[in-house]
């Protein structure tokens, strides 16, 4: 049995400034097995892989490979490749300006007698590789001529052709359609037969149960457990990933007694964005709080981005208060009365160098247009009002936002949207990374706005939080809206809905 083990990683720790990304993580990979590495975003899956492939150096722990005495430390991708570890990342690491054949062979091109690149042999070999995979491409054309999916398959073909012993696939299927996924799985099973060990990272639970033999779950950089696929049904897998002991879940009832208004504020029919989210319907009434739940990467954020117009919907219609809204860009949605607090507040929300006041009035100014500058007295008044109301802890209203703590930054963005008096507000993970006390404040605020007639869509990774605030929940899985639950919601029923499949 011992010689079946290809790779062991034990007690791996890795800290980035301010975060402990890996804390005694581990994984064991055997010969001829497909091993799923599961965990939510930020659980440390990618970091663990990057430690293995030499992209990052680890702080402590041990990596051992079959056939190599003593611990292994890779210092670069190249070193890892040399000892038989090939990796395909989610983002495609190929050159768009080179031909398909070159992308397969660059760095190890076949040579003629004179030491020059032998194009004919290279193209012939490349053609054979692609034919074997059942992909119909002209290998002499440049890579940019092909879709992302084909490019992804080419990246995989390159890794496979390099005689690897361990193949790591980091979310390779996110850009593939069903037919291409089937081709990939066929290839994975063939490699498995040949004794290659495969580490497979994916957000799609179905795919895990289709091809994998074993599952390792990570949470917050820690090793949760290693399971055989058969012994870990979906619900238990989700529970392991979310960190909830399935049997001990205390059900929390939503605060009842809401008055239901009949006025529909936003109604979407058949909205979709290719490759990100399949067509979905959505409706929200005045004063309602609707949650969108699902695992990270299940299409939660994509769904609300599509409604807001941050990703332009390619099909379907969207009505705002009965009138059709054709949003070309977020500014149209803002004008129609929407507000959106994105999950990545650093990249999409705040402008760090500007002051608290400037950040707060930003959306309002955008709606009014550049030429109608708000008088500064009015700006100050607004800023003070929201600093007071949301209890933003800042030295003054002119303090640059990047000097504030995470929770307070989040409040500044919230204030920005509140001062535009939106009828419809989307909050994508507003409570991530802020302390418990502030979280409760946020939840209270959401309920308060709703009681004042605002419609709110709320996304959070913490189910309790949503149970406490939402009257209805949309359930997302694999980029599709699969269910909508209402009324008696418990943690159990929500998690079962998220997991889907045989769990229900």
């Amino acid at each position, binding site marked *: 049995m011992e010689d079946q083990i290809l790779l062991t990683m034990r007690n791996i720790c890795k800290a980035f400034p301010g975060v402990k990304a890996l804390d005694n993580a581990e994984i064991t990979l055997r010969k001829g097995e497909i091993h799923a590495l599961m965990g939510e975003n930020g659980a440390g899956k990618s970091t663990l892989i990057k430690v293995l492939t030499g992209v990052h150096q680890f702080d402590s722990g041990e990596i051992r490979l079959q056939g190599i005495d003593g611990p292994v430390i890779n210092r670069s991708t190249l070193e890892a490749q040399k000892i038989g570890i090939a990796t395909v990342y989610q983002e*495609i*690491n190929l*050159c*768009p300006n080179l031909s398909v054949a070159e992308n397969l062979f660059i*760095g190890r091109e076949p040579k003629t007698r004179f030491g*020059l*690149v032998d194009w004919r042999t290279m193209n012939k070999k490349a053609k054979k590789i692609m034919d074997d995979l059942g992909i119909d*491409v002209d290998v002499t054309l440049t890579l940019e001529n092909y879709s992302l999916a084909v490019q992804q398959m080419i990246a995989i073909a390159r890794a496979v052709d390099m005689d690897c012993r361990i193949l790591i696939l980091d979310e390779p299927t996110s850009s593939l359609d069903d037919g291409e996924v089937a081709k990939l799985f066929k290839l994975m099973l063939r490699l498995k037969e040949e004794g290659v060990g495969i580490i497979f990272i994916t957000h799609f639970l179905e795919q895990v149960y289709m091809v994998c033999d074993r599952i390792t779950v990570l949470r917050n950089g820690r090793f949760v457990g290693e399971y055989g696929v058969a012994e870990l049904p979906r619900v238990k897998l989700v529970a392991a990933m979310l960190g909830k002991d399935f049997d001990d879940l205390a059900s929390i009832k939503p605060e009842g007694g809401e008055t239901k208004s009949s006025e529909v504020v936003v109604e979407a029919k058949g909205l979709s964005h290719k490759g990100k989210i399949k067509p979905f319907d959505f409706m929200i009434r005045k004063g309602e709080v609707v949650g969108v739940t699902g695992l990270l990467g299940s299409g939660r954020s994509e769904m609300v981005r599509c409604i807001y117009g941050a990703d332009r919907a390619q099909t379907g219609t969207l009505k705002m208060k009965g009138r059709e809204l054709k949003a070309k860009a977020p500014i149209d949605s803002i004008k129609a009365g929407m507000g959106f607090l994105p999950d990545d507040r650093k990249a999409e929300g705040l402008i760090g160098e500007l002051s608290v006041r400037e950040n707060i009035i930003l959306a309002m100014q955008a709606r009014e247009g550049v030429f109608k500058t708000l008088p500064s007295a009015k700006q100050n008044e607004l800023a003070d009002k929201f600093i007071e109301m949301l209890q933003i802890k800042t030295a003054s209203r002119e303090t640059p936002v990047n000097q504030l703590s995470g929770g307070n930054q989040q409040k500044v963005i919230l204030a920005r949207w509140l001062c535009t008096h939106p009828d419809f507000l989307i909050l994508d993970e507003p409570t991530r990374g802020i302390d418990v006390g502030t979280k409760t404040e946020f939840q209270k605020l959401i309920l308060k706005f709703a009681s004042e007639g605002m419609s709110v869509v709320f996304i959070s990774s913490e189910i309790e939080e949503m149970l406490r605030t939402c009257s209805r929940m949309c359930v997302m899985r694999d980029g599709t809206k699969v269910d909508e639950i209402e009324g008696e919601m418990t943690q159990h029923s929500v998690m079962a809905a998220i997991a889907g499949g045989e769990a229900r």
Partner: protein
Amino acid sequence: MKKTRVNSNSVLLLITIGLFAAMYAAGCVIYADKGFGHFQTFLNVLITNAGLICVACGMTCVMLTGGIDISVGSLIAMDCMLLAYSMGVKGYPCVPMLAFVLVIGIVFGFVQGFLVAYLEIQPFIVTMAGMFFARGMTAVISTAQLSITQKSNPQYYGWANAKIELPAFLGYTNNKGAVIVPFIRPTVVIALAVVAIIFVVLRYTKFGRSLYAVGGSESSAKMMGLDVRRTKLKAYVLSSFLCSIGGICYSLNTMAGAVQQAKGFEMEAIASSVIGGTLLTGGVGNVIGSLFGVLINGTINTLVISNGKLLSSWANIATAALLCFFIILQSVFALIKERKK
């Protein structure tokens, strides 16, 4: 979806070549009375621009990696001044001096390449420093207008004025009945050899393909196990080395050294590469295109000179128009590609 799709990069190259042919044909018709149609006129374009061809080849290699080398004009001035001073004034022998100039090119390129590749400084800044340095050194050698004469260095003079005659049937008979045999200078042989060698290097060697990969996506090239830094270093060494060869050609053409020599040469080289289909962003281009870029430039100059009445600055304006034309064309092709996806 497949097979019939034409590679847009080769379309760009064909347009460049077609434009050159059209421009030249127009010249032959309009200025037939001024001897534009004689084969020698074309050869003169090659002779005049032999240096620029070498420099443009090196520039193309650097631009393929997504970089730029604006030191080439000054480096040529320094080379020419060094040759003029050592051979014209001091009377040193030419072979060691030519070898010395080539070594200077390699060292110069190594320093620039090291700064760009290993210290990751912007190529524009690094080669701008190189540009000021070389121009300054030129003046340090001498601020006078120096020239190499038959007296000071007969061997070099002999090389500069050597005629390589082509078969007589390519010539023409003048109005006195004498057959004028067309000729080229040794510099043309050097320049065309450079083009041929660099063409093979770019297409058939691992180093050449690495240049394209680095320009296409540096991070991908690294992930695919290519040594990105060494590739970049080599590109700058190659550029400065070819620039020194170009400097020798330039010196053989002018037999002179002056501080203000070859000013703006770097821009002409970049313009030639771009007209020849090289993208400033890297990853696309080849030396055949750059050769035709230089020829187009040279033909514009010849056309303006043949006209006789036009201000020579019109050549610059024509180059500007052409640059715009090609840049717009490249953008349009890129947009079409995006659309198709």
